[in-house]
Every structure is written in C-alpha cells, then in structure tokens.
C-alpha cells in the first residue's frame, strides 16, 4: 500500500499525506515529483495537513504556457473570476478555486478521439460532485428538460451553463442566464454542442452518410441528426406527386369543359 505518513510529534496522530499515485501517474503532472509542487508548503517539518492556500495554483505555474490548450490560461482565469462560483457571496462557495473542480493529482484534459459519452461522464462528474442532489430521482430541478437523465448522459452541464460563443468556457452562468432553448441543440446547427463535438476524431467527423452514422451507433438527436438526403428525396417525391395530381386535375377540368362546349 502506498503510504506517505508520519506521526505528528506533538499530537502523536498519524498524518496521512498519501494520494492516489496511479491517478497522478496518468495525469498531466505525472512527470512531476511531489516536491515540485509542494516545495513551499511542505518545506518545514512537521508539515501542515493542508497546503497553504494560494501557494500552488494552476495559474501561478502555467501563466506563461499555452501549449496544447485551446485557450490561454489567462482567459480561463478571467472566465473563472466571472463565474457564479467566484462571484457568489454564499458561504458555501467561499474559497472556490480551480482546485474545487480540478484535482491537480488527477487532472487530464479530454483528448480528441476519446468517446464522447466518456467525456460527458467525466465533465459532468465534476459538477455533480457538489451538485449531486440535482440528479436524485426526487429532484425537481431541470424538470422542463424531458428525459433529464438521458440528456445528462449525452450533453454536458457546461454546454448549457456557459455562454455558447466561446471554446473551453469557465464562465459558469447563474441559473437565470443558462440556456433553455431546445433548438440550440435540436436543430441542424447545434451551436451548444459544437464545443463538445470538437472532441470527435477525424474518422468520426468523416463519417457522414446515413448508414455510416447507423453502423457506428451514433445517437440520433431529434432535429439535429436527420438525414438531408432522405429528406430531400421524400420532399422531391411529394413535390412530384403534387404536380402530377395538379396536372391530372387540370386534365379532368379541361376534358369536362371541352365536353360541355361540344
């Protein structure tokens, strides 16, 4: 069992500093030693049982680095500072920081090509770790959203709860400003889902046709994943039928008129 603990010299209690090492190894910080981040707080012995606040924040280390990310760190920080969590004066939201949502020992951004359902589960897991009571069967929250749990399995909280325009957006909006318009997803131009679907791999995006979609079991979303080819064919057949019937009707009318005149 991986342990990193010591007996506190004054109280005699065991202080456990171990963390999930596999989690860290798979995270973006897998290359770092504990001490790279914890140098300042844990410099002295006995260690404090929590690192000092503000000591190691993501931005402090990352400010100058824009590698691999869709957005700069400074933008993320600014968005976060405007979010409900940062501006809330609720005592429950006091001390809210990047670490409230991101465990630095586990953090790994979603990668292109990861299954969408998996990404949705991970990202929604972040929000539900605090807002879990929303998904209880008895919860009346989001009742206007039909098949709520099916939605929460295929779209992310942040897709509705952050402004649609930007990329990886950290500006979580207050309830009354959040998106309620079904058509921002249920249409041929699902703006809200653009951010989620950018994680689709090249192959996924290349798969256009009617049957390719079926074979790869992509979810059918009403209004969004309709097949334009099928629609065009059907409408063309109906249009032709209308013309045919109109011509038939005209023929009947002319025949009768000719008969009446004769």
């Amino acid at each position, binding site marked *: 069992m991986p342990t990193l603990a010591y007996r506190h010299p004054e109280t005699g209690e065991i202080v456990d500093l171990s963390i999930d090492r596999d989690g860290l190894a798979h995270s973006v910080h897998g290359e770092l030693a504990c001490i790279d981040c914890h140098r300042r707080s844990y410099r002295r012995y006995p260690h404090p049982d929590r690192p000092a606040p503000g000591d190691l924040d993501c931005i402090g280390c990352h400010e100058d680095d824009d590698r691999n990310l869709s957005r700069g760190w400074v933008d993320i920080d600014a968005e976060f500072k405007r979010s409900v969590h940062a501006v809330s004066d609720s005592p429950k939201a006091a001390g809210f920081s990047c670490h409230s949502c991101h465990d630095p020992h586990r953090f790994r951004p979603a990668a292109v090509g990861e299954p969408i359902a998996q990404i949705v589960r991970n990202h929604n897991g972040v929000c539900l770790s605090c807002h879990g009571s929303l998904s209880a069967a008895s919860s009346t929250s989001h009742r206007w959203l039909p*098949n709520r749990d099916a939605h929460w399995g295929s779209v992310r909280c942040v897709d509705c709860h952050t402004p649609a325009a930007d990329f990886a957006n950290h500006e979580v909006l207050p309830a009354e400003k959040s998106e309620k318009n*079904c058509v921002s997803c249920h*249409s041929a131009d699902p703006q809200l889902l653009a951010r989620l679907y950018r994680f689709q791999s090249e192959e996924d995006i290349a798969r256009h046709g009617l049957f390719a979609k*079926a074979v790869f079991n992509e979810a059918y979303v009403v209004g969004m*994943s309709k097949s334009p080819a*099928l*629609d065009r064919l059907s409408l063309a057949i109906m249009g032709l039928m209308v013309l045919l*019937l109109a011509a*038939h*009707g005209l023929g009947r009318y002319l025949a009768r008129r000719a008969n009446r005149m004769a």
Partner: protein
Amino acid sequence: MMSLYLYPVWLRLWHWMNALLFLTLIASGVSMHYAGADWLMPFATARVVHNTAGILLTIGWIGFVVANARSENARHYRIRFRTLIGDLIAQTRYYMIGIFRLEPHPFHVTEAMKFNALQQLSYLGVMYGLMPVLILSGWAFLYSVYLPETLFGLGSVWVVAMTHVVVSYLLALFLLVHIYIITTGETVFSNLLAMITGWHRETDEIPVKAPRETP
C-alpha cells in the same frame, strides 16, 4: 337518385378525429424535424403537442380496428381475390385514361362493397400496415430511454427514428393522394359529403357498366 348509408356515425367520428390528429402530427412533427426555422412551432411546444396527438391517434386506431372487426364495415375490407387483378387494371386504366374521356366509373358502389380495388388495397395497407408501424415506432421513441443500446447491430434510437420518419413521409404521401382521389367521385364534393353525412348519393338511375378491354 340512389342513396346508400355507407359511413356509420362511429366511422365518421373516427375518421375526422383521425384526420385532425394527423394534420396536427404533421405540423408538430415537421416543427421538430426541421427545428430552427422561425415559422415553426417552438420545439418544446411541438414535442408536447406531438406526443399528445400521437397517444390520441393510437387510441383512435385501436378503436377503428376493434369497431371495424365487430361491425358490418369489415365486409368492405375483404379482398375479392378472384376479380382483384382485373379490377385493379380497370381502375388504374380509368384514372389514367378513362377519366379524361368522361367514361363512366368502372366500379359501382353498392351496399356490399363501397371501395374500388385500388381504394381497398390502399386503405388496407394504410390502416393495417403503415399505421401500426408508425404507432409502434412512435411509442418506441417515447420510451427510447428503455430501448436496448443497439438493435440488429445498429443504434436502436436511430432505427426507430428512421422507421418513424420514413413511414410518416409515406403516410403524408398517402394523404396527398387520398385528398385528391376523393374528388374523383360523381362530383368533386360527393365523396366528401358522403364522409360528412354518411350517405352515398348517386344521380345515375341506371348503373353503367364499365367498358372492358378484355372480351
């Protein structure tokens, strides 16, 4: 003047309720399928309207099937196989040629049979073929959460959705033709009046036999 009472009250009630629900389903279904255009019903409204109309349509359809099986009306839905091919040819020829030459109808409405062969086959196909598929796929959509992930190796919601869409296009096509064909009665409105009043009226004193090609 000849009058036959061919459309009992229950049938007319069912029919006009069905027609109304069908138009509602088309309007709300199109609003969801093509969601985004602003001349359509709002999505959330369309969903509720569509589900409600679909449930009522199901009840109506079950009512039709039960009533049709238990009443006299069923006789009109029994195919006369012996003469079927000849009747179909005669009826098709009439719609394509005869009608423009003002030939008499090849089919004559009687107490025993109110549908010509084409009418009969299309009503049978619609009521006992397309409608049940439409209804089943609609209910499967409604309870899609409980569907298995895949069906025949394909995503099951996809299979359900495609079935529903294709069948509804076919039924919309039927509706177009249906509404046109009812104007080919003795006068443009005589069939429509029959479905409203229940009485089929004809002024022809002597039923004219259809001119047949075959000797």
